[in-house]
């Protein structure tokens, strides 16, 4: 009897090629997984990496995409929280079984994720959003991460390194204790350039300082793609440098998101239109990754 209510549209829902033109950005197979917490590693007083068993998402997600996590049990907190997929975990046969999130404790939801014990089950919706477009050699990739903005770069770096792209990570934090996974990127063959605001690791100052120097010194003939994720003023600075040095960039923005699926219009960012002028684009489906020069800062 209940079969009349198989509301989930298997046809559209499962067909990976459907509607590719009409919804160019959103992932075509969005699923909601009751994901068990399989590990939760605290990196510092504020940062943790939480691993969630979600094969359907892990096997489908692309670098730069995000998930919406329901952190609470009742209706407070109510809304899901968006998180970039940090790592994809695989079983011994190489099958993607879980994702991890790099979580920074800033409020009620991220605090719940920070404390969450193994065995807890959280609904995870995804994969969502427009991913980064990975380049191919000879283009070099410069990843620019501010703080927790590192998150989408683990999978992006892996994809790029698989393609043998030359990758540099410019990574800035407040302090040495806010920089994580540096070895991990280095082992992958990623060059790392670190900055901290207090000078406790790498160069003292903002991550845009070494970035600007690098832009100045690199051969004009060498094509590069800049990828940036972090606080918006940093993204703006990167986009600005990109324009000054006439280099392309892709930036992943972080807007407050109510739904992650284009339903609420909360997550908009001002984007230039072809014919001049600008309009508000929903960053959950039109982004979170945009070309740096598209955005009106």
């Amino acid at each position, binding site marked *: *009897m*209940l079969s*009349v*209510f*198989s*509301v*989930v*549209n298997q*046809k*559209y*829902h499962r067909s990976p090629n*459907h*509607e590719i033109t*009409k*919804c160019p950005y*959103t992932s*075509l*197979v*969005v699923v*909601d997984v009751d994901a068990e917490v399989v590990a939760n590693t605290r990196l510092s007083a504020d940062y943790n990496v939480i691993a969630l068993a979600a094969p359907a998402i892990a096997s489908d997600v692309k670098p730069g995409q995000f998930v919406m996590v*329901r952190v609470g049990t*009742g*209706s*407070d*907190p*109510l*809304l*899901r929280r968006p998180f970039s997929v940090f790592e994809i975990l695989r079983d011994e046969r190489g099958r993607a079984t879980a994702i991890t999130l790099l979580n920074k404790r800033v409020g009620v939801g991220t605090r719940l994720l920070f404390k969450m014990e193994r065995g807890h089950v959280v*609904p995870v*919706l995804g994969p969502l959003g427009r991913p980064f477009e990975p380049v191919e050699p000879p283009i070099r990739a410069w990843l620019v991460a501010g703080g927790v903005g590192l998150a989408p770069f683990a999978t992006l770096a892996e994809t790029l390194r698989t393609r043998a792209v030359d990758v540099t990570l410019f990574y800035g934090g407040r302090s040495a204790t806010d920089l994580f996974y540096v070895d991990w990127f280095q082992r992958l063959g990623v060059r790392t350039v670190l900055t901290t605001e207090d000078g406790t690791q790498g160069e003292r100052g903002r991550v845009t300082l070494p970035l600007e120097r690098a832009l100045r010194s690199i051969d004009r003939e060498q094509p590069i793609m800049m990828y940036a994720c972090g606080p918006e003023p940093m993204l703006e600075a990167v986009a600005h440098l990109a324009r000054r040095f006439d280099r392309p960039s892709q930036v992943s923005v972080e*807007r*407050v998101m*109510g*739904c992650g*699926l*284009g*339903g*609420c*219009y*909360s*997550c*908009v*960012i001002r984007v230039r239109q072809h014919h001049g002028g600008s*309009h*508000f684009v929903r960053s959950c*489906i039109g982004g979170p990754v945009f070309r740096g020069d598209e955005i009106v800062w």
Partner: protein
Amino acid sequence: MVNPVDLSVRLGPLELRNPVIAASGCFGYGVEYAGVVDLATLGGVAVKGLFLTEREGHPPERIVETPSGMVNAIGLQGIGVHRFIREKMPELRDRGATVLVNICGSTLDEYVELARILSDVEGVAALELNISCPNIKEGGITFGCSLPGTHQVVSAVRRVTPLPVIPKLTPNVTDVAAFARAAEDAGADAVSLVNTFLAMVIDVETRRPELSNVVGGLSGPAIRPIAVRMVYECRQAVKIPVIGMGGIASARDAIEFFIAGASAIQIGTANFVDPFIWGKVLSGIAEYMTRHSIARISDLVGTLDTTAREQQWTSS
């Protein structure tokens, strides 16, 4: 063997395959959700509020979370009625959606013009008159908070369209039932309620409003008990059907509105939390009806029993 339950509803001239409708502004133009839910399985899709022309909406921040709720001031960003008809209606028709177009105007003429335009569009099932958006100064709230205004806009639209006309009432009034009566008198086919409650959140560290628009509309489970009361009041006051909403997040909540007197319900905010809610609510309603031997959903509507209770003892 269990007989299938009959979920179809009739709201005056409007027939829906079931009583579960996606609430306006919480489901985009419907097409955004086509990958998640088969639009044809919904009772209806109330699309995002449309003006005659494109609107940019308010700058961010546009939403802020509150205890068991959220406050939004999107400012009715939208593509306008013409682009909607061109760009969205074909796909909505293709997918078999029952489309309720939520219309907004700054003046009476705009409502009339919108109604006229949409009356000729194939696949539009009904007009929901947004006379209650608290987020824009020029918007319909001036109609929605005055009884003559409500009567005026409903009758004006009524005169120009054969489509079912469903004014959507604001809860920010002293006596919502009086507005339902005004709408009924003016020829409305049904009323829907509630829209959001005017609300505000302050960031205490910066001492600034969290929303760029300063105030916005509260929705979500937090408002449900007030919305249920208002639906109950309207149900007593008018003969036309009531479409109830406000904080519905489960089959139980939907059933609560049916019992209070809603002939159909809408789900808004809860769709943000769980875009797969539709199947869960529909099957939950069917399960409840089966368990309580209710054959038709209409048999459940308005069945609140206010006689005193008695207690039964079973060991527990």
